[in-house]
């Protein structure tokens, strides 16, 4: 049977199995689900499904298997590494309609949620209960918990609280052969191999999560936010290292350089010092007296390392104002240039000074504007190259500069990604970090979960095959978050 007729048959079977209103293959849907928040132009999905139950997901995967089709799990599509880009006309399985909070157990501190629950909706539903879900990626107003699981998402407050993997206790998963399995347990100590732990961050290549038990973290009794400004970026970076070296692990340490501070201040007017070379936003939390001690120590350390001023938020409103600037950064960038390309690498936090200097040098050499707004506390860089895509030859310069930034990060002892994942974007760099044998070991895990290679193919691990044109970045993201 040719692929077109096979597609018709698959479509009919899906309509029969999960209901015709949950199966789309019109042009608008195919266009809409052809890409994610990344720079990749994307492929074309075969059929887009919107399951509402675990059984629907099982039915979707079994139908795909009957017709030898691959499938791509998809949450809100906010990913920045091309992880949800459909390659080879797969079934796109969107979990956005599986969006219920199923159970909240305050005594044992967990909640069962469906994968399509939006991160911020979960946070809002917990407001006032004394608990929260700690991962807070900057896309939290639209990204889903299922997407957070797939990408092992981070966020500013993951410095002290850990990334998503530390906050997922158990996951109900439909494996690529259609088998339903529950990985982990709500007590957080299932024996046997930590299959839950490797599923988180699997970028949808190991199966689809249909129910997720998240850990509820107690709200801290006291929170204090500081805004520090520096006349030299290196002093700000040295302050970050000095704070960690002193034994303080704040809830968050974010850095913004002069260019992004100016753009943000122009956009939202939150009172950032526009003449500073860099600002740090630092948040500490815990019991009140310990918070006071840490605030005083951070003030002292930062002044010793060249801080010009330290502003301590004196009210919730002031605290929210300080964070508003940080969270508006990517919206603000659109005010100065229509395009940007956002990188994500991690370096040892003691190498911040030298790597930031190298990033500026690379951007200057390629005559590009770079802005830095990133999670400094855990060394998670996000150099943001902003440009006008209409300028001839600009993409070549952007890509070449980006590749050098990745190399500089690796040379400093860093890794390829701290929270965006590998997806399509960085699989070509994997061999820079891992040997052939190391990558073969990772492939063993993929093969154990997905021997036929049907779950989100062409992602994460380098392979001879490519996903159409997706190995070549030739378009720009419409929006992006860190």
């Amino acid at each position, binding site marked *: 049977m040719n692929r077109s007729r096979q597609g018709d048959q698959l479509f009919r079977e899906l309509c029969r199995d999960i209901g015709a209103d949950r199966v789309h293959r019109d042009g608008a849907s195919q266009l809409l689900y052809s890409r994610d928040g990344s720079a990749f132009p994307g492929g074309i999905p075969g059929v887009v499904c919107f399951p509402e139950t675990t059984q629907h997901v099982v039915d979707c995967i079994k139908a795909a298997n009957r017709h030898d089709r691959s499938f791509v799990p998809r949450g809100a599509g906010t990913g920045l590494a091309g992880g949800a880009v459909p390659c080879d006309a797969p079934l796109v399985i969107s979990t956005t309609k599986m969006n219920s909070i199923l159970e909240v157990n305050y005594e044992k501190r967990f909640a069962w949620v469906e994968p399509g629950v939006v991160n911020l909706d979960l946070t809002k539903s917990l407001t006032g209960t004394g608990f929260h879900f700690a991962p807070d990626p900057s896309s939290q107003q639209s990204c889903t918990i299922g997407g957070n699981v797939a990408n092992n998402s981070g966020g500013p407050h993951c410095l002290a609280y850990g990334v998503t993997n530390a906050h997922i206790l158990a996951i109900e998963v439909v494996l690529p052969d259609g088998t339903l399995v*529950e990985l982990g347990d709500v007590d957080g100590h299932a024996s046997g191999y930590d299959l839950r732990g*490797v599923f988180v961050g699997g970028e949808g290549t190991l199966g689809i999560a249909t129910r997720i038990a998240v850990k509820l973290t107690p709200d*801290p009794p006291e929170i204090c936010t500081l805004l520090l400004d520096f006349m030299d970026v290196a002093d700000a970076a040295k302050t970050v290292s000095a704070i960690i070296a002193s*034994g303080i692990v704040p809830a968050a340490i974010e850095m913004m350089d002069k260019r992004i501070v100016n753009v943000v201040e122009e956009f939202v007017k939150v009172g950032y010092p526009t003449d500073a070379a860099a600002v740090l936003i630092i948040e500490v939390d815990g019991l009140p007296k310990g918070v006071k001690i840490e605030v005083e120590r951070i003030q002292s350390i930062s002044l010793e390392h060249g801080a010009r001023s330290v502003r301590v938020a004196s009210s919730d409103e002031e605290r929210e104002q300080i964070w508003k600037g940080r969270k508006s950064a990517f919206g603000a960038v659109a005010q100065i240039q229509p395009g940007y390309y956002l990188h994500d690498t991690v370096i040892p936090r003691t190498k911040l000074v030298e790597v930031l200097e190298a990033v500026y040098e690379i951007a200057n050499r390629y005559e590009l504007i770079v802005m830095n707004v990133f999670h400094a506390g855990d060394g998670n860089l996000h150099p943001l190259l902003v440009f006008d895509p209409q300028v001839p030859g600009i993409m070549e310069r952007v890509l070449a500069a980006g590749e050098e930034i990745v190399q500089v990060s690796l040379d400093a002892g860093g*890794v390829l990604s*701290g929270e965006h994942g*590998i997806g399509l974007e960085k699989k070509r760099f994997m061999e820079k970090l*891992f040997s052939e044998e190391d990558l073969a*070991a990772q492939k063993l895990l993929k093969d154990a979960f997905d021997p036929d290679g049907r779950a989100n193919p062409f992602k994460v691990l380098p392979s001879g095959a490519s996903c159409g044109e997706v190995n070549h970045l030739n378009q720009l993201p419409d929006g992006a978050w860190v």
Partner: protein
Amino acid sequence: MGMNDLEDFRESVGESGPVAVVGGRTHWTVGGNPTDDTRLVSAPVGIDSFDPSEMTVSVKAGTTLKDLNEELSRYRQEVCLEGSSETTVGGALMIGTDGIRRNLIGSVRETLLQAEYVDAKGKLIKAGGPTVKNVTGYDLCRLLVGSLGTLGLVGRVILRTRPQSEKSVWLQGGLQPEEARHVCFQPSSLLWNGKETFIQLEGYGIDVDSEVLKLKNLGYEEMGTKCPISIPRFRHKFVNGMCLDGGIVDVYSSILYKSTEAAEPQHSNEVVRLGNKVRTMFDPSGRLNPGRDPYRAGP
């Protein structure tokens, strides 16, 4: 072992024949004993590098927790691994069980950032990365923790460290677990013997003192820095209403510590089938720690 000790370790593991690493033998029987024909080798020993301002340490798997903690405590740091003084770093990771302070210091699974291990073919493989945050590829470190050495034999690791608490104190009192857990913010441990609860508080001295006062007002007695009760060796899964039978419950993780061995844990067939597929992929001939099975280990 000298400069090339990882290479020496790789050679000692070799490419064929049943093999296991012997550490401090403090958890030797967990998940079953290795078969009689298993050749025992030792992992290399020593701390390769420790940068307190990075909060990571590179250490060889045969190093004892005692030696590692002595070095880290010089800089008022620690790792989230618990065991006796003879327990090795590799042993604690391969067993992978969390201690009673998990509520404060986190899980062993969060601690392992990078591992260099010898695979079933005798090749040296690197998993994970050296930084404190990393989503580069599949996280095989997660898989190695708690694997009882059935997927690879670990030679060297990079671990996340954390600051030691300024003050630590235990208290003993009469509140039941469901009441006790709400009195203080994030105690590091909460144990229950069926009659009384035992609470460990850690943090800045000034905060700990305030929390201690709250508990003393509820009739609790300060018991010093060491755990006031002896914790039996075997871990059972605790379910509300279960008879403690002389055991001690870790309230936050629902583990019942008893002096008698637990029955083999129950797992779904699908989970065991998937786990065994993983094992077979990593070790097709079954030469790594034969006789041991992570699914027979307790919680």
